[in-house]
């Protein structure tokens, strides 16, 4: 059931209900989301809730319209993006990925050390090699040199990393199916143990962490190539 955002009879905007983003759109707390339908609902709700279309309403309704629309936009932004959506669901499940990352960043700052990055074991060797090459490229650029072979080699690795990033997204989507299966089982009245849930959550966290690592790497490579 979608939360009530406006009066079905008179179309007036209602006060925002304190619900999560899934409930806002009337979606089950599952990770596979029909983005086309989500898009359609976003436009439909915008046409009812947006402040521009409620500019002549009373001040209370205008305030609700503003609150509701900001909530709608926040929910849409989060749910349409596969990574943000997974993060959000994990947060609802009590996993504070963002907090972990923040406290790691703060600790690194406090101690003056670089932030500890867990390198995915299967990438250790490659990453080590790549970082050396990036260092060399930056040095060369500073000196005004241009090593075409090195640039080509790094470019090739960038393509590989992007493919890796893509495959990790696919891996994440496979995990969604398993998670959604658990939720479905629960809805069908079959119990799901906390142990089972935790296991699936941890696996998703692991994929997200690995993907995040690759993404940062791709960003560094792009920057080094562009500058």
């Amino acid at each position: 059931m979608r939360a009530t955002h406006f009066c079905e009879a008179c179309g007036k905007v209602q006060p925002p209900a304190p619900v999560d983003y899934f409930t806002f759109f009337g979606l089950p707390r599952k990770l596979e989301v029909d983005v086309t339908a989500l898009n359609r609902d976003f436009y439909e709700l915008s046409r009812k809730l947006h402040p521009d279309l409620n500019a002549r309403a009373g001040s209370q309704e205008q305030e609700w319209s503003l609150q509701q629309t900001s909530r709608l936009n926040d929910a849409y932004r989060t749910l349409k993006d596969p990574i943000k959506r997974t993060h959000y669901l994990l947060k609802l499940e009590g996993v504070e990925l963002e907090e972990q990352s923040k406290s790691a960043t703060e600790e690194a700052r406090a101690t003056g050390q670089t932030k500890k990055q867990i390198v995915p074991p299967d990438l250790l060797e490659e990453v080590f090699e790549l970082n050396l090459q990036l260092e060399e490229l930056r040095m060369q650029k500073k000196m005004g040199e241009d090593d075409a072979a090195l640039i080509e080699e790094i470019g090739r690795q960038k393509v590989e990393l992007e493919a890796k990033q893509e495959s990790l997204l696919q891996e994440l989507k496979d995990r969604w199916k398993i998670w959604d299966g658990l939720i479905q089982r629960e809805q069908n009245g079959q119990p799901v143990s906390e142990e089972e849930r935790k296991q699936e959550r941890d696996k998703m966290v692991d994929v997200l962490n690995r993907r995040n690592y690759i993404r940062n790497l791709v960003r560094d490579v792009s920057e080094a190539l562009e500058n």
Partner: protein
Amino acid sequence: MATDRIVGIDLGTTNSLVAFMQGESPVVIPGDDGSNLVPSVVALDENNQAVIGNAARGLLISTPERAVYSIKRLMGRGLEDVQEELKFFPFRLAEDLHAGEVLRIKLGEKAFTPPEISALILRQLKRNAERFFGGKVTKAVITVPAYFNDAQRQATKDAGRIAGLEVLRLVNEPTAASLAYGLDQKQNGTVAVYDLGGGTFDISILKLHDGIFEVIATNGDTHLGGDDIDNLLITIALDDIQGDLGSDLRKDAEAVQAIRKAVIEAKIALSSQASTRLDIELPGGKRYQREITREQFEQLIQPIIDRTVGPCKQALKDAALKPEQIDEVVLVGGSTRIPKVRSLVKELFHREPHTDLNPDEVVALGAAVQANILGGGSTATENMLLLDVTPLSLGIEVAGGVTDKIILRNSTIPASATQFYTTQVDGQANVAIHVLQGERELAKDCRSLARFDLKGIPAMAAGMARIEVKFLIDANGILHVSAREQRSGKEAEVEVQPSYGLTDEQVEGMILDSFDSAEEDFRQRQVIEARNEAATILAALETGKKSSAWGQLTTDEKKKIAKLEKALIAVNDEEDYQAIRKAIDLLNQGTMRLAELMMDDAVSTALKGKKMDEADVGEGPSAPHPVAKAEFE
């Protein structure tokens, strides 16, 4: 309805315009000199009266120290931000300015803040519209560059308020332009709007979807435009003159304005000619003459127009689109008349840009469309809805002077974010929050928006308080902050110190003609209310005449009522609300017995088991004849 008349205003760096929706299409309202464009120039004449627009342009040449142009460049900015501008613009800052304070610009001996100067331009537009409509205009939609930050937007809104306008919405200029274009060409697709005006540059990428105009990404530079081209040409001319004639005219404000006027004319000429001739009369009767070809001009301005490339590429990247995926490119702003700019855009987006609408007017026309939507819409704007984004990320300063981004750029607005704070020491009652806007990692490199003090936190042990702070960017792109201590449920007081803004009290004190217009507003409201009341009593009388009670009145009574009715109708069209009220009172008294009779009828009918509303309203021909009335009694 007259009371709902909302105008659309383009408050430009070089020119300003006011437009409104006339039936199905937006039109620009001309000034009393017949011109659609009001130059954004403000001057004080010898009597210290403000002169605006074309009239002020003359004073800019004759008494430059009493005039100002391009004030938009200073909106929402502090002393530290404008050092670069001061090298090129003849802004005369008040001598007693301090860092962090709102700027004040001197016109003659008087000093004004940028919002006050903008308000004078807005008031001129308001007057033009009022003259056109023959009635009050109090509500407006005002456009701002998409890349304007919070302080610049707030300053624009303040200017509206000072001018006596309720600013219903700030709309981003390129988005407004897309509305004006979209009105004619209802279609779906991806559109890029390249807006290079007098002082600002914006690029916005939108998706059009069945009337929804959804901005996907925006970028820009709020200090890049035709002004920069002018300043470059002025500098070259001044160097030339010094070389040729040995006189440094930099300090000669009059001469500089004469040169500025000439180079602008040359710039415009070069958009349609292969070459032009600068011919300027200098003080002392000497002349500065120089031939300039389009090729030379294009070489000179290349570095300036190249500065638009970076923002365009970033916007495409943020939208995750390749140039080939853009269906249409729209050009907005006077500087897009320059052929070299057009070819640059063509190269960037791999297609010929649209130039069907006048690039000077399209933003104002779009503002009028948005005004129409806010006013409840019409057949022309049915189904149209604008979904815009915030151009810059919003962040909070955290430990180590680092920016923690909480709302990312290109998020659809309104957008919100919630942060939790706690206290560091036992019994701490205040928490300070520093809000920033920008993309840089360090707080010092971002724009400081405001410092918020959360006050009145209930006494608790350190770390026990849990203060929820909600940041909300509204549909104008302006930030609102609210806070609540969660354990006690107590609203924390949020005290804002805007970094370069005016306080509410300051704005209040600046409102132009506030007394006059308040009185006028009051009078108008009284007239409207009196007329509404007159309409009600006249309608009731019509009903009464058809009722059975009417037949029970004497001929004299009927004559008297007819006379009073005529008297009310006669004064109803006049602007004198007191006269209307008096006529209403007299008619009320004169129809007292009619009302009583009608009431009696209604009651007796109700007693006979009929519904009240059937009984007390006679229904024209089928209503019971007065004579037949007796049978009820």
